[in-house]
């Protein structure tokens, strides 16, 4: 049902080309699939398996290890509230409880309108800005209960176009211009790097 689109296949091949071994592209490609569909579908994972040259089971094996990959549909906005130590000390757990009441769901659940999924997450590296949260991996620092309500209202009303739907991570991609590309160095390429070799030649001559 949801294999990668032709545009995404082009992108996928560009990404695979950057790694000495195609399987190294697996996590970036899974993100690409999640960006396309909002979660990982079986068809997309099977397609990625074909592109990378592994079995669909191996793709699932990797995908299922990582927290960010969703095997079931989630809300348009995934709200990750940190309750780890620095946030706990400054009201992270209370903020999570407030969010549960405001949205009527428990952590891991999605609102019936499909807009919000709430998650109780581990440290997201904003400890001096506690309590903090992320919406689709965009940060909100030192957030009060009132600010949380405002944020939810704004998201529901479509007033936050700075936050892309769930699945989209970086909106800027790396692109290596072909004429500037140094190229992959495979494990089989056992030659001494040119600049190391020339330095030792110079040393020998000196």
């Amino acid at each position, binding site marked *: 049902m949801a294999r990668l689109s032709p545009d995404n296949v082009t992108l996928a091949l560009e990404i695979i080309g*950057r790694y*000495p*071994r195609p*399987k*190294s592209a697996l*996590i970036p490609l899974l*993100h690409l699939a999640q960006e396309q569909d909002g979660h990982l579908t079986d068809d997309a994972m099977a397609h990625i398996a074909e592109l*990378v040259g592994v079995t669909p089971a191996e793709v699932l*094996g*990797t995908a299922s*290890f*990582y*927290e*960010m*990959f969703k095997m079931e549909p989630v809300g348009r906005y995934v709200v*990750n509230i940190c309750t*780890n*130590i*620095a946030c*706990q*000390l*400054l009201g992270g757990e209370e903020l999570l409880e407030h969010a549960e009441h405001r949205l009527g769901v428990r952590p891991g659940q999605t609102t019936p309108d499909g807009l919000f999924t709430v998650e109780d997450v*581990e*440290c*997201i*590296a*904003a*400890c*001096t*800005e*506690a309590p903090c949260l992320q919406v*689709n*991996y*965009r*940060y909100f620092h030192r957030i009060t209960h009132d600010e949380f309500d405002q944020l939810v209202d704004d998201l529901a009303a479509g007033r936050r176009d700075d936050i892309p739907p769930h699945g989209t*991570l*970086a*909106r*800027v991609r*790396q*692109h*290596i*211009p072909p004429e*500037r*590309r*140094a*190229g*992959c*160095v*495979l*494990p089989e*390429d*056992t030659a001494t*790097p*040119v*600049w190391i070799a*020339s*330095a030792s030649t*110079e*040393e020998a001559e000196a």
Partner: protein
Amino acid sequence: MAITDAPKIITSRLGYDDSHTINRYVATGGYQALRKALTMSPAAVAEQVKAASLLGRGGAGFPAGVKWGLAPADVWPRYLVVNGDESEPGTYKDRILMERDPHQLIEGVLLACYAIGAGQAFLYVRGEMALAQERIAEALNDAYQAGYVGKGILGTDYSIDVVLTWGAGAYIVGEETALIESLEGNRGMPRLKPPFFPAAKGLYMQPTIVNNVETLSNLPWIVANGGEAFAALGAEGSKGTRMFAVSGHVRNPGVFEVEYGVTTFRDLIYAPVYAGGIRGDHQLKAFIPGGGSAPWFFEEHLDLPLEKVTVDKAGSMLGSGAIVVMDDTTDAVKACLRLVRFYARESCGKCTPCREGTTWLERILQRILDGHGRPSDLELLLDVSDNISPGLTWPPKQTTICPLGPSATAPIASALGRFRDEFEARITVAEQARTSVPVELKAPSHA
């Protein structure tokens, strides 16, 4: 007090709104160290880093120059992997460097690869950090266009691709062998050392140097100013400057770059220019000196300098430069449970003592907190901990492949060692509730 006027080595550009752009970077001396390095031999560049005595800033504090030297001579290709998977509880500094000075990191990567002869570099950014991924992608694209990265860098024979790659949510991937597994497209489970020391058998079984973001961000300054200028700052055994995040119950939480080894915990927590002291009229109860995995410190440790060897000897670590301050309102049992729960959730499941042990530690602590604790539970907590980290010594021993499991025992040994009365009080209440409430048994009435 030792608040010094040491120069800002890695946070010098953060005052600019456009600190992440190539224009600002080049206008403030950026890529000059690369130009200088390209006139030196790779060995001479490595020598400067060694002279700087730069300790790794990821957690273990291993000297970067020594780490580079561990790669076996004349085995090619080698790889450089940048560890940008910052996720230790309390740690907030690599994200700042990636989001707000990505070119400084990229220049550091280029210097490292030049010195060690790496054929390709992979910059692994934590999955949840979307902005850092965007900023690094943009910075790399600009640096390629400007000729700083890629083929024939600045017209020399030095060529290398720096590939931005990213994770998908797993604390354990911050461990270097797990990161390599992840980069090979696998589940992020650590490898056994020996034989899989990355410097010998790392990415694709080739020699691989894994360096932290903050570590590499120091290199442009070191190469530009010389390793000796860097080593002139700080104390014996802890050179240069270092970023510390001070969070929790302080007036002014923040991330500060201070002279390493000289500044004390008291300076950092109480000085008005830093965290400004405990909030309100409260008193210090405890503080974590180096991230969630570090044993807790107390009042009597405040005058220790932020110096690796001193802190190690005192029974904890500076780890990832994360100081979490707890005041007298903190519930020691609750804080302990929250940290232990983190390790239980993040255990990769490879080693039995960690997978089963952390899970049981969490359950026991949860039942104590919920008022269902048993008198034998405190000894049980220590016994389970002992099975993961025999003897509960410092530095910790481990029955596991990586240090994640032993990390879960640090908050238990600390909280139980210092605040045993708080645990006992909860258990006593639970016991009384269980034994003293008269229970009237009545036959159900069916009237």
